[in-house]
């Protein structure tokens, strides 16, 4: 039974493979034959992959991304696109990476095998990074809607892009906000000794120092700890007016609590790792007034946000969670590059990707030489009445500023 099943699958996949090869140039044999007879122009089917967690605890965010991609594909097909004199029909191939780095590479190979021309994904940095090698080897462009780890685009691959600001842009942005808007003079910086937390805190400290602030304390804790009274006590002696934490909510929550119980009156600010509803739960009443940044605009403020949110709601009968607009724009960026290259072949339109200048739902999209979003906006939120409220959106300056803090 099992073996027969396997053989069947193998046969099916080889069949798919042999068909798949010709698919981009001429219409695949069985289905579109009837349709192809009608229109004058030839039709090509172009497959776009979407990879995100569709099951498990992060499924709601992953499905959100896939829905964004699907909406974009339907919009493109409705509009009708012609590339190289052929009508293009886009088709979605959605895969579930379970937010698992190992599964991500399997899924990536599967997408490559099914001859997608571009991939929107993955959601997690931990999945995007290993998968990017597979796409790079196959020469297929990848746009992550959400992965913020700087490493993703620093591997030297020509195929990696993202439509979200990364962590090295977040730290300096936070620092500029702290020094210019909060007028912080004496800042204590704490991190959780992880790649994410320490990177964010280092970038923050470097920019804050350059802006003339005093870093009165630079402390480290771990991502397992829940007792920060000792370091907070020694920080209290240095009298900071702002405490910055690079880390995630299970540490930030108790830390803010303990800060208040030690009578520290300083403001508290952090990155996207603590900009979560769970942080407010963990910190309780003491969460009030805490600030944190999150890459991207609040969806209400995106240039195309309002109509997108409405159309999304009408189509999927659900609210946009987080990254659906990024997923939508990622597909549009692919289509835009294909149009300029006048080809649906990855090898031909990939060089055009870098020259993208597209006005998307999330705002203007352009990539730097590494594939990072140029001037990706970052929004600072504040806890007000037990909820995260957008406070201010910062767009990093167009110059080389985001890179200034890089070591």
């Amino acid at each position, binding site marked *: 039974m099992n073996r027969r099943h396997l053989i069947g699958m193998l046969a099916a996949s080889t069949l798919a493979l042999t068909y798949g090869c010709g698919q981009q140039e001429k219409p695949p044999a069985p289905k579109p034959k009837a349709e192809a007879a009608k229109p004058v122009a030839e039709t090509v089917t172009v497959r776009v992959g979407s990879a995100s967690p569709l099951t498990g605890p992060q499924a709601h965010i992953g499905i959100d991304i896939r829905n964004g991609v699907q909406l974009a594909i339907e919009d493109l097909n409705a509009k009708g696109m012609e590339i190289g004199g052929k009508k293009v029909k886009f088709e979605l191939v959605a895969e579930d990476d379970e937010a698992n780095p190992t599964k991500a590479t399997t899924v990536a190979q599967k997408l490559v095998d099914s001859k997608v021309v571009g991939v929107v994904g993955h959601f997690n940095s931990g999945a995007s990074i290993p998968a990017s090698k597979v796409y790079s080897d196959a020469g297929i462009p990848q746009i992550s809607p959400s992965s913020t780890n700087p490493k993703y685009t620093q591997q030297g691959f020509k195929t990696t892009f993202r439509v979200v600001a990364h962590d090295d842009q977040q730290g300096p942005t936070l620092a500029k906000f702290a020094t210019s808007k909060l007028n912080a003079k004496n800042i204590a910086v704490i991190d959780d000794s992880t790649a994410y937390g320490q990177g964010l805190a280092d970038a923050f400290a470097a920019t804050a120092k350059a802006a003339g602030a005093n870093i009165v*304390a*630079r402390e480290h804790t771990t991502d397992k*700890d829940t007792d920060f009274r*000792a*370091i907070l006590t020694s920080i209290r002696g240095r009298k900071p007016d702002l405490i910055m934490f690079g880390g995630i909510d299970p540490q930030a929550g108790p830390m803010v609590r303990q800060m208040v*119980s030690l*009578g520290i009156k300083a403001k508290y600010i952090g990155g996207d790792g603590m900009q979560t509803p769970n942080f407010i739960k*963990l*910190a309780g009443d003491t969460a009030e007034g805490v600030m944190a940044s999150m890459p991207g605009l609040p969806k209400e403020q995106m240039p195309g946000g309002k109509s997108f949110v409405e159309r999304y709601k009408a189509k999927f009968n659900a609210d946009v969670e987080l990254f659906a607009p990024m997923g939508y724009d990622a597909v549009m960026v692919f289509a835009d590059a294909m149009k300029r290259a006048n080809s649906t072949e990855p090898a031909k339109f990939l060089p055009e990707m870098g020259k993208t200048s597209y006005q998307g739902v999330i705002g203007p999209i352009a990539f730097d030489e590494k594939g990072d979003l140029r001037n990706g906006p970052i929004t600072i939120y504040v806890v007000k009445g037990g909820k995260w409220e957008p406070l201010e959106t910062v767009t990093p300056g167009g110059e080389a500023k985001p890179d200034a803090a890089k070591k």
Partner: protein
Amino acid sequence: MDIFLQQLINGLVLGSVYALVALGYTMVYGILGLINFAHGDVVMVGALVALTVASALAASGLPAPVVLALATAAAILVCVALGVTIERVAYRPLRRAPRLAPLITAIGVSILLQYSAALIWSKQYISMPDLFKHDIYSIGGAQFTDLQAVVFLLACAVMAGLLWFIKSSRIGRAMRATEQNPEVAGLMGVDTNRIIAFTFFLGSAIGAVAGVMVVLYYGLGHYFMGFMLGLKAFTAAVLGGIGNVVGAMLGGLLLGVIESLASGYIGDITGGVLGSNYRDIFAFLVLVTVLVLRPSGLLGQHTGDRA
């Protein structure tokens, strides 16, 4: 100076929690010669049970002390049942087995408890509802909340009660007799099986109280929280002299203070090279130094082969 005083207060509160957990290790070791590695996870279960009960009752409108009392009672009940069951099912059948067997079993039970808790409570950090408004007091520039005072005083009360119990009560005397020599104690009419079960009962109940303190103090619980807490408490027990009840208390408080001072001053001492994430180096450095100079711990006696 006020910073030093503050660190001392932080350390004493942290240490009193370590001390309570350490009691569970040291009592079992004293009587059975077994390191009950599952004890930290029994504390974790107690903490999460208390957290669940408190969350469920927080919105019911009951006064906060009643909610806390019910949560603590539930935690003690579950922990005691768990502790006694573990002893009966996992350790008693192995009492005559080579010493490595119960040790491995203890580690197995610990993992079993952790992952059962992960299934029941998920792997997320769970938040404890705010039961009390915390007032902040201040002495000599150092600040403490009423909660910290309660944790410290309650821990002291439990420890004093335990000392009195072991010294003066009938069961306490039987426990000491079993500790000295189980066979002779048995010949003298002590039901050693019952005494051993009772030791687990007592250790688990005290552990449950410690678990409640942890969730109250930090405001959150997690399925893995018992591991590090257990390791630290075990270290405290060894530092004080494992098997010695007063030693466990002293070791716990000492370890808490060392940790607190180390994390507070480590940055200054090393000129910023090491941060408080390396504080455990100091804690274990002290442990190694004490063990080199006094191999049986601060208050431990050399008890020959059985220790």
